[in-house]
């Protein structure tokens, strides 16, 4: 009984001390202040798509494999090159970013970009026609003071963010 009480008391103290330790030790934080700090994602991150229409062979595999039915094919004539083909259009309302379309594309016409913030002011902007898909997603930083950071795994602090 006495031992149990002493043991309990000891563990109470230990819990309070670990709290104090984290309170007083300098700056361990894992939060990323997202709109202010934008992470630079790893190179192979599966973000939004970009189309290289010169490589596209209009095979339609991307549309066939898309699990969410987000890719439609559309007849498209390029303004300058006058090249004609059935090129994909992406509906980001449906897209689940699985990257199957990129992987199955036999001619590497579809490319990954590392941009993932598919947020727009107008709903229709979520639908990427061929024109826009060729240009690729260009999304402005969400706020004025945004800066890019690199996240690194750290043995002591879990994750540290360095300015890029």
């Amino acid at each position, binding site marked *: 009984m006495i031992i149990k009480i002493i043991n309990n008391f000891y563990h109470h103290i230990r819990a309070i001390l670990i709290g104090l330790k984290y*309170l007083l030790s300098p700056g*361990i*934080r*894992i*939060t990323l*202040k997202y709109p202010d700090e934008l992470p630079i994602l790893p190179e192979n991150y599966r973000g939004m798509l970009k189309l290289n229409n010169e490589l596209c062979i209009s095979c339609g595999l991307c549309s066939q494999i898309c699990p969410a039915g987000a890719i439609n094919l559309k007849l498209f004539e390029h303004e300058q090159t006058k090249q004609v083909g059935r090129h994909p259009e992406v509906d980001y309302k449906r897209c689940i970013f699985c990257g199957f379309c990129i992987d199955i594309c036999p001619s590497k016409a579809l490319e990954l970009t590392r941009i993932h913030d598919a947020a727009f002011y107008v709903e229709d902007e979520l639908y990427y026609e061929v024109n826009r898909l060729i240009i690729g997603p260009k999304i402005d930083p969400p706020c004025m003071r945004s800066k890019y950071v690199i996240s690194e795994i750290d043995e002591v602090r879990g994750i540290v963010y360095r300015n890029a």
Partner: protein
Amino acid sequence: MEIVDLILNILLHPSIFVPLIFPGFITILIIIILLIWAERKVAAKIQMRIGPLYVTRRFGGILQLLADLLRYMFAEVITSKDSDKFIFIASPIVALTATLLPLAVIPAGSLLGIELIALRTNISLLAALALSSLTPIFIIIMGWASNNKFALMGSLREGHLMISYEVPLYLSALSVAILHGSLDIVDIVNNQQRVWTVLINPFAAFSFFISVIMSTSRFPFEITESDSELVAGPYTEYSSILYGLVMGVPYMRLYVFTLLFVDLFLGGWYPLIDGFSSITLIIKVLIILLFSVFLRSVYPRYRLDQAIRIGWHILFTLSLISITLSLLIIGWVM
């Protein structure tokens, strides 16, 4: 000029100054705003987060609570159809008032040479304790008037807890009274000039402090409003400014009790700073307050029956021990 003098005189008269400015209403508002901010920041620091930030970024979001309060002000007061509307709205206000009542008899040192006590009686300790026991009743009424099962269960919990913390609270306070041979808090503080009560009778201090934690539903005794099963306990149905009030009540109660705790156990306004003895007092109060809110980030909450058991088994025993100790010390000294 005479009018200004008159107003100043009225304002600086202890019976106005104490409840209204220091340590009364205005100080409480400031302290609560800082305290809740500090609570959130402390928790954030321990939990590897940032905490409130975007309201006044430069000062680390210190005005966050003010912004929240403003939002509460402009929100619609919603009373549910089945609630007892008059009591539902009146009880938070009465509870708030009742919480502040003990301040009338709790001395808070002196400021600019004014003795800060609104009402000096020779039974101020008893009066403070008696007045402080009003609030839980209104919390229970709130839950009843809401006509909500969760609120009702929360009220019942408050009732259960109330009987288990009040006894040790009063007994340990009385053991201090026995030790110093007076029921007047001013006398008790003055007696501690050389040595604080906490050093003479630590059991009393411990059981008093835990009872305070319990009565103001701080962790690990945040049982009344435990959100994981009761949503918000007695406060479930409250919204807008009424919610702001009911959420403020436990903090005010904590402040009042901390003031009492410092007076009884930590030597009140000693060591003296000439003419500004209140500053010593308020520093001690702030430290105790910070420690109480810091506990949130260390503990989960106890179960209701466990808390009641702690109240009756441990705290009650400790308070009895503390009374015995006080009697022994008195007997030994005399």
